């Protein structure tokens, strides 16, 4: 009798452990499985060129997702990233093309615009204490409206030098992959090694406790939105240079794929948990891998949303499971 109950408890514990394991590492298992299946089905998949191409495609979203990741770790959300990317870069492009501003200066303007737009988000969230969901949802629409007005909803081609930069490569290594990796690693260090990063995590974990510990949560929150705005602008810049022009759909839906990638990478939407480096990097990469693979297996593009939606759904379920198991 006694033995049976102990065995029962142990069985429950193992089940719990298995669940916990799957919730934490399931995504890596999916990643490996997807990679293996594709490599077997499509011969062109597992080649250096293809992997580099996929990384290249990943860069803009990865940079944007890092910003979202910081905001989510801090317990807030930023839906406006796509529109921030579009607005800041449309200002930069108009300056470059119409006013003949030199490229480095235009890039600085792009980043600064991103900072200002992020600060606007942060201002409403911190000072007016409006839910970040509502603020950034409103800004998602507003910023895009302004940007469409600025670009007249037209496609504007970039200067030749910038177009060359976007797809510049040494052998099959695209230069912007290096920039993307540098950005993500810098942020990762900022998040895990510096006091600032700890403050962000603590704020996301429990706002009230963080406040009692003397962490300036309002400043932290504000700064997180600024970071997200700046990174959205930089990510948009990479995306724009890859295409070679700014089009009205730049950054459209980036909030969705970005948040999805962040969650897949193990950053909890409940805040205060997760890491940028292996997490977000692989999360974004997985989304790209899935689409490239489907593309190379010549599946109809209309089916992509199902795969993406399905995988995101599983990731979300794992996230909520993880939180529930801990309680």
């Amino acid at each position, binding site marked *: 009798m006694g033995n049976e109950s102990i065995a029962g408890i142990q069985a429950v514990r193992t089940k719990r452990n298995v669940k916990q394991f799957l919730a934490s590492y399931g995504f890596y298992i999916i990643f490996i499985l997807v990679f293996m299946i594709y490599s077997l089905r499509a011969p062109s998949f597992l080649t250096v060129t293809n992997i580099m191409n996929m990384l290249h495609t990943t860069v803009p979203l990865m940079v944007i997702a890092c910003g979202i990741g910081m905001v989510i770790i801090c317990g807030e*959300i930023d839906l406006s990233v796509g529109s921030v990317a579009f607005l800041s870069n449309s200002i930069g492009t108009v300056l470059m093309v119409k006013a003949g501003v030199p490229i480095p200066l235009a890039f600085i303007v792009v980043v600064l615009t991103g900072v200002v737009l992020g600060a606007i988000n942060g201002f*409403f969230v911190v000072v*007016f*204490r*409006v*839910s970040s*969901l*509502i*603020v950034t*949802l*409103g*800004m*998602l*629409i*507003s910023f*895009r*409206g*302004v940007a*469409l*007005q600025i670009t007249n909803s037209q496609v504007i081609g970039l200067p030749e030098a910038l177009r060359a930069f976007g797809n510049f490569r040494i052998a099959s290594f695209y230069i912007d992959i290096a920039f993307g990796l540098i950005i993500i690693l810098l942020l990762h260090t900022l998040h895990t090694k510096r006091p600032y990063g700890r403050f962000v995590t603590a704020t996301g974990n429990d706002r009230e406790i963080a406040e009692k510990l003397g962490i300036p949560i309002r400043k932290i929150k504000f700064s997180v939105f600024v970071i997200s705005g700046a990174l959205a602008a930089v990510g948009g810049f990479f995306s724009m240079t890859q295409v070679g022009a700014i089009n009205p759909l730049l950054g459209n*839906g980036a909030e*969705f794929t970005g*948040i*999805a990638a962040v*969650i897949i990478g193990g950053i909890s*939407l*409940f805040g205060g948990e997760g890491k940028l480096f292996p997490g977000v990097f692989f999360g974004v990469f997985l989304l790209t891998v899935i689409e490239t693979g489907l593309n190379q297996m010549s599946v*109809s593009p*209309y*089916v*992509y*949303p*199902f795969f*993406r*939606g399905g995988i*995101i*759904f599983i990731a*979300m*379920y794992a*996230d*909520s499971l993880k939180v*529930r198991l801990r309680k």
Partner: protein
Amino acid sequence: MFQQAPCIICLKPADRVKDVYLHISIKKSEGTWNMLDQTQNEDRNSSTTQLMLTFFKSVSNSPLFIFGVIAVVLSITVPNFLSVRNIVNLLTQSSTIGLMALGMTFVLILGGLDLSIPANMAFSGILGALYMRDIGSPVIAALIMVAVGTAVGCINGFAVAKLKMIPFIVTLSMQAILIGSSIWITKNDSVYNLPDAFGDTILFRMGIVPLPVLVLFVITIITHIVLKLSFFGRWIYYVGINKNAAGVSGIPAETVTFFGYLLSGFFSGLAAIIVTARLNSASASMGSENIVLDIVSSAVVGGVSIYGGVGTALGAVIGVIFITVITNTMNLLHVPYYLTLVIKGLVIISVVGFDSLRSIRRS
């Protein structure tokens, strides 16, 4: 015999709802849990005068009042605004957004969010329209729209209530999936050549009032009464105020949440019927994400809190009319479309900001 044992439980309020403490009084004789809370627009008695009083109180309490004044000023100064034709047009436009906002009201009061409403509307509209075009009977097509909408709502509800997933993400991915499949099914074209009988019936005018307006009117009143006077309605408020407390006091919180999302889907299906009839076609572009902003902002302007537990159906619909008035006057004043987007975005943020500043001052 009649033992009333009022036990006052002060629970740690849910994350952001700071100023709400539940007073739970148990009436054993009636075998029911009767909970009274202290939010400002909760009424205890159900007499009509009290209902009216509560309504006026909540109106003057909400930002709606100020914006209502602005709307009146606009309507007097803007040319062509006060013509019968424009008003009827405005109300017809409001009817679809209004239905969706009613669905959103349930979800918002529950403390959740449903971003998939417009996508759901487009998806169910497309399925119904395809049936009508290829197989026949508009009546069954309308039923299909409602059924599909409700089914999608059920999936959302299941994921949120049973799987405990975050509503925001569930409905965001649902939106992506629904828009994706709408584009897939229609090959990104619109479904037209619908039977005339469908549009003629739905847009039938009684005198000068089109049927959709009447439908919205009737459904708003029903929803308002359900929310305010029925058991189910009260449960929705309690779950929205504090889910754990509601669960502890015996309210089937999971089931209530599930039905909230189900109703949200149901209303999307209803809206699909009207939109399809008005456009005389259905396409994936009906579910543009700008509509979500319209719906949420209407509900919020109408006094529904996004933190849950506060708001009325009537308020939400008045909010819809207000937002439609803004859009309409900007059209009449020839404001560029992009600027309209900017102004709308700012209106919602300032309304919510105003509201939260006031609640900070109150506490």
